[in-house]
Structure formats: C-alpha cells, structure tokens
C-alpha cells in the first residue's frame, strides 16, 4: 500500500534518512516514535509530497509519487499536522471550505455525520460557530480529526494527534482510529494509548534512519 524505496532525505545539510525502506500493508497500523529531530514528521510529509526526497521513491497504491501523481495521491490521504493548522474564521467555515475543493466535490456536507463525530470526540455542537482562534489546542486537534474522517479516505497520517488531550480522550481517539480494519494508519505518538494497542506496530526512529 505505502512503500518507501531506498529513500534519502536531507534537511539543512543533515541526512535524516539514508537508504531507508519501509513497506506498509493495507489496514496496517504503524505508530512512529523516537527522539525529537529524527525525522518523524518529515517521514509522514513525504507520503503526500509535502516534503521532498533527495533520492529513492515513495509509492502509494502502486503509484509512484511524482509531480504528475501528487494531487491524486493526496486525494487518498487524510493528514493531520502536528501544529493543528486548521484555518478560516469559524469551525463551520473551515469545514465548509474543505468541501469546496474540487477533489472533495463528490462528498456531501453531512451535518448529521458531523454531529456524530463531534459527539464521538466529545466536542459540543456550539463549537461549530466558535472562532478558530478561540479554541484550545485539544479542541483544534479534535476538529482536525473530524475533518480527516469526513474526507472518507482510507489512509490516515496523524502527527501527534492526541498530544493536547487528556488520558480519557487519548484512549478514545486512539481506539477510534486503530479499531477500523479498513484504514491504514501511520501515527506519530509518544502516548501509551497508541503504543500499547495490540493492533499497532511500533516503529522507533533512531538518530539517523539508515536502511530498514
């Protein structure tokens, strides 16, 4: 499903990955952990082409990532970034905007489904009208997760998705994503709720990731 084929990645002159290979099968749940600066976030960004590889290749569903395929590959992936970069004035306007993109035009803005997801992630309905700048870090994270699910894609790239949540919500979010057998999940996390889940395979990145 997702393959890193002998990739080499450098950042600011430093080698983050050198001859690194990894094969992730459909439905697999990979939890990436490791020290800061080992390239965890970069590894996730390589898949939708949000960070460049110096050599080697990345394939998603047998399609090699390149300038011609990058948009199609992005349409298969739900990515939640570490900094929770949701945008717009209100939560409603953020979610609305996602549905205006041509790539998502086949999706319906389903208020019932949004309500269900809000309930599932313990977000109050009134949050829809709230200004994004007024949300807490945890609320932003959960709104980004709701958006990721609404896109109805099957590959989830989650960068520290529960870092700002309490233990109860960490558990809830982790089991939501890890229990769905049809979803392929790559999550960066240091939380035990992800790392100790029986369905998860833990990938620990070293100081420099060389061939694996």
């Amino acid at each position, binding site marked *: 499903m997702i393959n890193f084929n002998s990739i080499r990645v450098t950042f600011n002159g430093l080698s983050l990955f050198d001859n690194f290979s990894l094969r992730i099968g459909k439905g697999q749940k990979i939890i990436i952990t490791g020290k800061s600066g080992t390239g965890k976030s970069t590894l996730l960004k390589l898949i939708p082409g949000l960070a460049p590889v110096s050599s080697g290749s990345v394939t998603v569903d047998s399609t090699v990532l390149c*300038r011609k395929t990058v948009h199609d590959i992005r349409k298969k992936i739900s990515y939640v970034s570490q900094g929770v970069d949701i945008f717009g004035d209100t939560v409603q306007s953020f979610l609305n905007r996602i549905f205006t993109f041509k790539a998502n035009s086949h999706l319906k803005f389903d208020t019932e489904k949004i309500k269900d997801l809000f309930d599932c992630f313990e977000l109050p309905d009134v949050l829809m009208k709230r200004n994004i700048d007024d949300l807490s870090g945890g609320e932003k994270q959960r709104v980004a997760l709701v958006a990721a699910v609404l896109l109805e894609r099957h590959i989830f790239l989650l960068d520290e998705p529960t870092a700002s949540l309490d233990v109860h919500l960490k558990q809830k979010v982790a089991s939501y994503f890890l229990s769905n057998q049809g979803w392929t999940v790559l999550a960066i996390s240091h939380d035990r709720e992800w790392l100790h889940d029986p369905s998860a395979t833990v990938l620990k990145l070293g100081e420099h990731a060389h061939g694996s």
Partner: protein
Amino acid sequence: MEASDIPLLSMVLCLFLLIVPMAICYAVGLRSLISDTLLAVVRMLGQLYLVALLLKYIFTSHNLTLITAWILLMIVFASSTVVNNCNLNLKLFFAPVLASFFLTLFFLLVYLRLFVLQEYDFFDPRFLIVIGGMLLGNSLRCTVIGLSQFYANLKKSHRQYLYTLSLGATHMEAVIPHIKTSLSAAVRPTIATMASMGIVFIPGMMTGQILGGSNPIIAIQYQVMIMVSIFVVGLLSTALGILFSIKIGFTPYGILRDNIFSGKE
C-alpha cells in the same frame, strides 16, 4: 496662462525649508536621517534635472527609438525596484514582474489612446512617457505591496498552506485566499485616495495642471482618467505579477521554494 518660472534664488529658498526638519532630527539625535535626507535630496535634484533635460530633447526631437527605449527602460527599472523592495530573488522574479508591467501598461496605453485620449499620437512622448510613467509609478507601489504580502503571508503560514494541500486543494485552490488578501492590500490605498480626493486633498496632477493655467474642469477630467487608470493598472499588474510568478515560486509539488527570498530583509 502658463506656469510661471521659479527663479533660482526662490528654488534655493524652497530647499532652505529642509533646515527645519534637519534641526529637529539633530535635536532628537536622528543623525542618520539627516544624511539619508540630504542624499535623497541631492539624488532627486540630479535625477529630475537630468530627466528634464532628456525630456526636453525627446519632446522636441520626437525620436521614436528614443521614446520606445525610454519607456522600456522605465519598465525594466520598475521591475527591478519591485523585486528588490519585496526582498525577492531578482534572478527568479525579474522576468514575471517585467512581463506583468509590460502587458498591463501596453493594454492601458492602447485603451486610453483608442477610446479616451484620441487627439494624441500614440508615440507622442507627452502621452507615452508622461502618462505611461505616471501609471507605472503608481502600479509599482501596488505591486510592491501585493507581491511582498503574497509571498510573506505564504511563508508565515506555510504549514497551514501545506495542510490545505493535504486536504485535497489544488495548488490554485490553496493560494487563492492569499491572492485575495494581497490584491486587497495592494489596491486599498488607491481606493482610499479616490474616495478622499477633492475633500481631503487636491491631487498632484490636478494641482500641476491648474498652476500651469488649465481650466479646473479639464484638470478634473484628466485627474479622473488618471485615477481610474492607476486603479486598473495597479490591480492588473499585481494580479499578473502574482500569477506569472507562481510557477517560479513553487516546486512542481506546490511547495514554496526556499530560494525565493533575497535574504536582505
């Protein structure tokens, strides 16, 4: 009635006015501002007198090559000024900005000649150089604001921009909000100027024409024509500058290139 000549002594007395701000700068310890002002005044005097001499020659000679070369030189100078003031990489951005200025100015001058100022010959230097220069000077200000804001905003919110791409936005869908913000910032000063014209201030061109002996009604007609043209040329040159530079400013994956800034911020 023609504008009366200002004698040399009067010009010197006019420059004497600068003593007041210089004294204030000296008193509050702004020594660098004094030298900067003096240098700017000397440059202005030299440049304007040189231009006046050249214009006088061009107006009398009607040399077509010289007129064309002059307008092209203005476009080249304006393009490099914009790119440098935006702190963008001159090598990368010079060509798209040049193309945007050239096309916008060409369109506006042809339109004005065909439909508004029909009595002028297209290559009349009073039309091509004076009107063209005024339009170019004002669109330069708009383009600096618009282009610098576009790339500065994208750099500042680059993570948010990448997230937008990951949500399925095409490159154009992801940059459209930034284009809107930049265009708005670029033309807002012109809109404010248009709205306050005649009440808050009497514009320079109109003042010049009235002092030069023109009927105020005619001066107003020219002023309206110039303001509308400035607005159109400002918006168009900014929009085209951004659109033409997009292919250069981003990688084929839609990521902002890291060598687009000149590094002298």
